[in-house]
């Protein structure tokens, strides 16, 4: 342990390089061939399998597992990619414990589901490592579609449109494509630049042009796009973050968890990412877990997540919570921030109010505790960025309103992923929506 571990303040290089290396290694290492065969053997090849029903992209899981067990790993990858071209990332980041693996009959039977996520990774890693391409573009249709946002929804949409023979221009506000896969996933879930490899793999089907640094409302407008393209798909995510809305939340030591996660992903060296000795994270979702866990891994000595409700109300799955706790994160419930003040030494004093349910409504108890920290992260939800220039497109509950084919109120504009008011905010849901929107766009343009 190096000396800087115990220093107060938000500083770089709390750990030595070996410790960083170890801390940010692959969180769930891949199965080798033998492990995959043993894991695959446990699948019962269920009829109308509950795991498939639980998968937002409806991958034929019993089939791909059976293909692994018969030595047809290529066929297995094809089965996965047919439904989910981002099956590689989903295998890494899906909360399988609340999706396919929760539904697995062996979870019912033995409390130990088939390791579906790791098996999916085994097959997709094989395909991507060997650059196996299973899909080819159909004959060019002469149609062009603007896909705005190169995250999971946009990539899935672009790939499916390319398969259908359409030309796609994939615009993204950031310097790199990938969206949250590139900027929003905890580092240890996507090691070795996997997000960029996946972008390359998906776009290698051809017919997809990526245009970076182009933001809707700045370089791009829907009207402008519709002049150049036959249709538009919006996969713009949620660009804005919610503020705490308490006194003192504007301090520079109060940071957005989303930005921190993105900066960490883009950092050349972990030693160059500053972090506090004492860190408090406000929130209860995956973002809160990811930022808290990574703060610990960067060398923060004392990391607490504070959530205003109980454990059972947290959006982060139990597996995520346990992963975080196992790294030394302290998760506290039933408290919310009331005020943030700066001490003379530069630390933050966060006055937390204990909460309770009263008549089904959450309210403060009037009792407080002050927590002194170096750094405060907010992870209390994201919003459709203001001024996203979606124009007159209808919105509900702060997100773009879509029908069951992901058509917006503008007949030439479709949308999917976190920016729409449908489904959970998961990579796999975004992929399903992008894919299905592409089918709808194709049907509309073919009519």
């Amino acid at each position, binding site marked *: 342990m190096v000396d800087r571990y115990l220093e107060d303040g938000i500083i770089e290089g709390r750990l030595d390089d070996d410790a960083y290396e170890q801390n940010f290694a692959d969180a769930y290492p891949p199965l080798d061939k033998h492990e995959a065969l*043993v894991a695959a*053997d*446990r699948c019962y090849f*269920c*009829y109308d399998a509950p795991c498939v029903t639980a998968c937002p992209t409806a991958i034929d899981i019993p089939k791909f597992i059976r293909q692994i067990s018969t030595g047809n790993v290529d066929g297995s990858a094809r089965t996965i990619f047919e439904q989910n071209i981002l099956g590689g990332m989903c295998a890494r980041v899906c909360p399988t414990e609340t999706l396919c693996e929760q539904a697995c*009959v*062996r979870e*019912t*039977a033995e409390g130990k589901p088939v390791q579906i996520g790791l098996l999916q990774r085994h097959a997709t890693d094989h395909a991507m490592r060997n650059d196996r391409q299973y899909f080819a573009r159909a004959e060019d249709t002469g149609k062009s579609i603007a896909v705005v946002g190169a995250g999971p929804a946009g990539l899935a949409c672009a790939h499916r449109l390319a398969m259908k023979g359409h030309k796609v221009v994939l615009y993204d506000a950031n310097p790199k494509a990938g969206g949250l896969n590139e900027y929003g996933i905890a580092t240890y879930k996507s090691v070795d630049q996997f997000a960029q490899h996946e972008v390359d793999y998906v776009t290698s089907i051809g017919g997809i042009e990526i245009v970076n640094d182009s933001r809707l409302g700045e370089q791009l407008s829907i009207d402008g796009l519709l002049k150049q393209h036959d249709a538009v798909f919006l996969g713009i995510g949620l660009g804005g973050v919610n503020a705490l809305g308490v006194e003192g939340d504007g301090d520079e030591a109060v940071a957005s968890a989303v930005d921190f996660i993105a900066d960490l992903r883009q950092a050349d060296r972990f030693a160059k990412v500053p972090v506090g000795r004492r860190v408090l994270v406000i929130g209860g979702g995956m973002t809160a877990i990811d930022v808290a866990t990574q703060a610990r891994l960067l060398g923060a000595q004392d990391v607490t997540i504070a959530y205003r409700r109980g454990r059972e109300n947290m959006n982060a799955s139990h597996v995520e919570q346990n992963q975080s706790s196992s790294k030394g994160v302290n998760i506290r419930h039933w408290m919310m921030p009331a005020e943030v003040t700066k001490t003379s030494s530069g630390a933050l004093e966060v006055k937390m109010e204990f909460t309770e349910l009263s008549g089904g409504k959450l309210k403060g108890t009037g009792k407080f505790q002050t927590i002194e920290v170096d750094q405060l992260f907010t992870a209390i939800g994201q919003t459709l960025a203001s001024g996203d220039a979606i124009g007159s497109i209808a919105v509900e509950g702060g997100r773009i309103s879509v029908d069951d084919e992901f058509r917006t109120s503008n007949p030439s504009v479709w949308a999917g992923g976190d920016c729409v008011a449908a489904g959970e905010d998961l990579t796999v849901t975004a992929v399903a929506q992008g894919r299905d929107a592409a089918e709808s766009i194709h049907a509309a343009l073919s009519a």
Partner: protein
Amino acid sequence: MADLRNDFVGIKSPNPFWLASAPPTDKEYNVVRAFKAGWGGVVWKTLGLDPHIVNVGGPRYGAIWGADRRLLGLNNIELITDRPLDVNLQEIKSVKRAWPDRALVTSLMVPCEEPCWEDILRQVEDTECDGVELNFGCPHGMSERGMGAAVGQVPEYIEMVTRWAKANTRMPVIVKLTPNITDVRYPARAAKAGGADAVSLINTISSIVSVDLDQMAPQPTIDGKGTHGGYCGPAVKPIALNMVASIARDPETADIPISGIGGVTTWRDAAEFITLGAGNVQVCTAAMTYGFKIIEELVEGLEQWMDTAGHANLDSIHGRAVPNVTEWQYLNLNYTTKARIDQDSCIKCGRCHIACEDTSHQAITNLVDGERRFEVIDEECVGCNLCVNVCPVENCITMDQIPAGDLDKRTGQDVPSEYGNWTTHPNNPMSDAAE
């Protein structure tokens, strides 16, 4: 504690588990390890005349596997012992002296000429081993030279060679039968006619276990070629049980002692062989898969079951299931069962449904009131048992008997109380009733 001591044609062993003539009994080192582990006896790997045969230098075995790569069937192209006769004889003598309480039987295979048998039997007798087993079974390598299965497939040869053996030794003679025939009763009768003290079966089954799809050749593959081998292991147990029962039920051979061989892996397998008429059992593949230590489970499991079921010794279970083996036409066609699915233990995999729906009688639901639920439809269920066999949870699905007098919803008739079989069934053109 149940008494497992075994007396097989006068050969005594502390338990009924012998290692079969095979690689595990090829030499003193292995056999001593087996005896130390607790095996009741061994049949020494088959001796032949010098010059001794040679084995292939490449792979000798192939296999099929179940889930988790459990070995279910083993195929081998190894021949009889590839060591000089003298070496084997000396070791047999030494082992028998050191282990007088264990059964030690020597397996033999020499050409079909009486002097050959006379010569080797005299030498084997000098070892003071307990008996000989005539290997009329090996389906590969030796049969092409007129030995092994080539003898076992011709009842007249079996009788002739058995008679020579009996004429040239005072030792008990066990005749090992090949399953590579159409009706095992004929070779068994021939062995008896030749004076055999016992038969042992089954030897391995002719087989090609798999094909190497890169080399386009059977496995095990020797320099690009393969050949049929002898198949054994858990996969062959049902075939062996049927053959053992056939001999035990045949009035002509019902009294000949049988040493049961074929896929014995657990104490339960052994108990099944013994209840179908085997006087003891021989084991090979299970030992080759797991090592000699399995004898502990075999012995303790058999004792535990016999104690629980109230069987004092092996005689009290020997042949007990034989009277209940019958021909299909004597099965009671009025006996009616329906599958029952215990919803508490059902894990909702749906395998029973799809097996029944796709391949059988459409008698299991997959949805009830829009919920995933698997229930038997009595109006369709023929009681076939397929659902029980494909269900991954033991005892989740059971076959319940419909009592006589109750309605069988499939036929719309009450279940008859009387016994009724095919021989008297009105649909049988040859039935007594139709006359």
